[in-house]
């Protein structure tokens, strides 16, 4: 397999996240480069993406806790096409990352050598801009 270094083909093209009222703490955290997860103290489990209730108990008593930013690749794809508003980017990596906190994040992997890209690869949090908003992606650890 040929080796290609994929930095961030989507840079400058990402649309601004359309935020909902109850996810505000996540985006406030993002401003400080903190990846916040909802934590249900009763179920003792995390959840991501943010929900209006705990998916475990249906209750609303949840904490926001900062994730370690460490995880591994659960699955990935090298995508050759992108939906609007992206305009003909070079091939880019979309991946499902399993965080240490046992939740999964759908994201991009940037600064990655395709020869090293595989399921189980350790990754760490990185930040890019989506519009003017700080947006979490991952890169090889």
């Amino acid at each position, binding site marked *: 397999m040929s080796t290609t270094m994929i930095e961030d083909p989507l840079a400058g093209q990402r649309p601004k996240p359309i935020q909902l009222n109850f996810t505000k703490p996540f985006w406030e955290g993002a401003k400080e480069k903190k990846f916040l997860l909802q934590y249900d103290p009763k179920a003792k489990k995390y959840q991501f993406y943010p929900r209006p209730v705990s998916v475990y108990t249906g209750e609303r008593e949840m904490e926001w806790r900062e994730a370690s930013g460490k995880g591994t690749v659960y699955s990935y794809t090298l995508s050759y096409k992108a939906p609007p508003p992206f305009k003909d980017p070079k091939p880019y990596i979309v991946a499902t990352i*399993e965080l240490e906190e046992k939740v999964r994040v759908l994201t991009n992997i940037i600064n990655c050598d395709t020869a090293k890209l595989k399921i189980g690869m350790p990754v760490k949090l990185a930040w890019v801009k989506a519009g003017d908003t700080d947006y979490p992606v991952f890169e090889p650890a």
Partner: protein
Amino acid sequence: MAQRDIAIIGYSETPIVLRSGRSQYDLAGEAMAGALKHAGIDKSEIDGMAVSSCFSDAGNPFYGPILSAYLGLELNWCQVTDLGGASASGNVARAVAAIRAGLCETVLVVAADSQSSENKQSIGAFRGEFQYPMGIMGPPGYFALISQRYDHQYGLDAKALGKLAVTQRNHALMNPLACEKLKKPITVDDYLKSPMISDPIRMLDCVMVCDGASAFIVTTTERAKKLGAKKMVHPIGYGERVNYLETDPTPDITDGGHSVAGPKALKQAGMEVKDIQMLQPYDDFLIALVLQMEHMGFCKKGQGCAYVNEHDFSHTGDLPLNTGGGQISAGQAGLAGGAHNLAEAVRQLFGEAGERQVKRRENALVTGIGWIPYGRNWGSSTALILEAAQ
């Protein structure tokens, strides 16, 4: 125990056309008129309607009542179902339930969409925040993540997928309603060489979005006999699962809701997998066929590709599959696409499939798939078992 008190007595499917420029109302009208004619009943018999939501009129909060007004229907029960590609099979089950509950007696189940002409979808929710900014290529991207994981866990045999592509294409070549653009023979090699969209999803893994509609007349078996129905198909088993392993934050994404919906439908029908004579499964991507066979118990997990290699899915084979071409080779009429698989099952059970007619036509298993949750397998799964009346 399987009940045979409800029957489908007529159906119709429009040609599947790329960018027809037609409204879904026009397509639905054509499908209803065809189904009434096919059933040989008067429009005044219809007192219930179940319609699939569509992309082409997605912003309309009064779609059901407006569509029924366009069709000149006065209803005692009106339902819009938004299970995506699972809506058509889901609506047969909803019609059965509504009729049994005494809400209505004769239901028009209809699905129409002109997504390739006009797409008004605006989903928002978590997608607006956590999906759109990272550029996943929609359903091909999601199915790529599922496929990659499947390959990691079990090994993915691209040639087996190619075999399914060729089988379905051969069926589409015999289907006068299939999209003209897709009516070209293909080989396994064509499949393997088709361009990567989102690795390992190739162009020929995917559906092409088109326009089209299907309609079905569902009533009681008793009423059907009074109306002089010559042919009947009974829905005898149904299973549905909306969201699967939703409270498991790290699920196995090669598993899916048909592992609940499939066995439930079979149990209700009093059948086992080996009793199924033909498969008309929802096919937005070829890998979905393999996964559904595994989930519903046609083979063990991870054995789907081997199962594909061991069976002949052509209309003359041991387990005919998507004999109308499936959506992948006949075209996907937007969110009405799932009704193509259903229409083909009813057509085959009525013995009206022409040169692609299967020999053993006592029953068929139809499935539906709808919506893709965040980083998981598909969210809505339906399984419907139909039986030809003796």
